[in-house]
């Protein structure tokens, strides 16, 4: 009964499912005996501690002891040498995701609303949009590099592109599917132009935009981490592939503990962002009951 008071039931179920996942992992890792694929939980904890940068010294004297208490591997060594920490990598990736959302979402919404609202714009832009949408965002990386060199642009542009193309469809349908009769009703009450658009069509498209935004967050993460895995010396993608350049990666063996810690961190970051989006959306769209 007290438990019920402390946790609402949904929280309890949530914790139970997490505990079950952890237990299943421990069970599999102990039974499988393949630490190169499913490292034991202590390894994960060690990798997490090391990547968080808690008391790591790489100086030779206490290296042996260090090995004992802390997780170490080729991938971890490379990362530590490059000064990579989990929180640092996460911050860089979150920054890229947020940039992609900040630029891509307004851009996509603008295009979608325009195409949804104006028949003429739709006639001209829709075929181009369908072509553009079919291009995987990461395929732009090398071409952007030709234009802008090796820098931040070729990581950010694919993210912006991916987010914008994702947002076009919900904005487009949000406007299109606002039942014509509501537009008629508003018009027949004398609402035209900006009043009609801003106070009837846009709010009515709100739920579709929120759903689209939640997809866009996921797409932004996919593209960011993908771009970082290919061409970046920082961020979560870089952490997952273990730093260094592609050529060296073929020779070094990946550390499963680092990868799993990285994936879990990505999952948590994505979950947190989605929760924020839902909460903010709920406030903005509180008239949708």
């Amino acid at each position, binding site marked *: 009964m007290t438990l019920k008071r402390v946790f609402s039931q949904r929280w309890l179920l949530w914790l139970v499912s997490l505990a079950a996942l952890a237990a299943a992992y421990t069970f599999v890792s102990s039974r499988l005996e393949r630490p190169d694929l499913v490292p034991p939980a202590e390894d994960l904890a060690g990798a997490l501690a090391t990547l968080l940068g808690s008391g790591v010294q790489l100086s030779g004297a206490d290296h042996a002891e260090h090995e004992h208490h802390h997780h170490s591997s080729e991938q971890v060594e490379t990362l530590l040498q490059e000064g990579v920490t989990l929180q640092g990598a996460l911050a860089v990736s979150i920054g890229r995701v947020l940039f992609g959302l900040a630029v891509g979402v307004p851009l996509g919404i603008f295009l979608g609303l325009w195409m949804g609202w104006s028949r003429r714009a739709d006639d001209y832009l829709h075929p181009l949009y369908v072509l553009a949408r079919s291009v995987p965002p990461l395929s732009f990386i090398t071409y952007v590099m030709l234009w802008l060199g090796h820098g931040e642009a070729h990581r950010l542009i694919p993210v912006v592109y991916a987010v914008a193309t994702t947002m076009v469809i919900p904005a487009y349908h949000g406007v299109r599917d606002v039942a014509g009769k*509501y537009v008629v*009703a508003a018009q*027949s009450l004398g609402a*035209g132009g900006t009043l*009609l658009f801003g106070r009837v069509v846009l709010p009515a498209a709100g739920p579709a935009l929120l759903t689209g935004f939640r997809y866009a967050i996921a797409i932004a993460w996919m593209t960011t981490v993908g771009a970082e895995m290919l061409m970046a010396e920082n961020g979560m993608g870089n952490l997952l592939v273990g730093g260094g350049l592609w050529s060296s990666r073929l020779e070094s063996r990946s550390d499963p503990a680092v990868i799993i810690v990285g994936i879990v961190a990505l999952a948590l970051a994505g979950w947190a962002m989605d929760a924020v989006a839902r909460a903010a959306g709920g406030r903005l769209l509180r008239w949708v009951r």
Partner: protein
Amino acid sequence: MLEISSIDTYRGRAQILRQLSLSVGEKEAVCLVGRNGAGKTTTIDSIIGLLPLRSGKITFRGQTISGLPPYRRARLGIGYAPEDSGLFPDLTVAENFEICRWLAESSGRGGQESEERVRAIFPEVSQFTHRRGLYLSGGQKKMVAIARAMMLSPFILLLDEPFEGLAPVVVTRLIEAVRKIKEMKISLLIAESNLANASRVADRLYAIDRGEIIYHGDPRKVTENKEVMNTIRG
């Protein structure tokens, strides 16, 4: 007040209205009676500007309005309650009225006085102002739609099938409301498929069939014209 002169209107490729003319005078209630598909709604859509005219013209209080977009016509004082009521289902009745208040600010129509007049016509609406549009009964929806249109103090009110699908007692209630609106010196154009209902409110009557006016005159005398009666009864 409202003058429609020989208009042709199409829906897509199909011609619906053929050289249709009708007029509504000041303080006059006019009914447009016809079967389903005769062109009643198309006539109303042409007046409020939802459908473009191929030919002919529409004037309202001496001004040609055929080229104006719907919202400009509404702001001139043409009120409209659509057949499906056109309420915003996610909004409460009070919020549906709120829309008129924004519009009153920008167009200068309506305001406090007209809100009170509306309350006098439909006192029962105040009992469900906090209910969402979605959860209203058919009769309540029609009342709210008419009340909403009245909020902007129109010179003329266009009602598309206001009595359709309602129980007789509710029809009587609405007819009473329409009579009160008439007493406020507001012109009315009512599209109606039921001749009996139309005769209870109309000063003048037009019968429409296949997009053409087939009868025009006193609603009490239409029953004498067998041919017209057979047509509008289907």
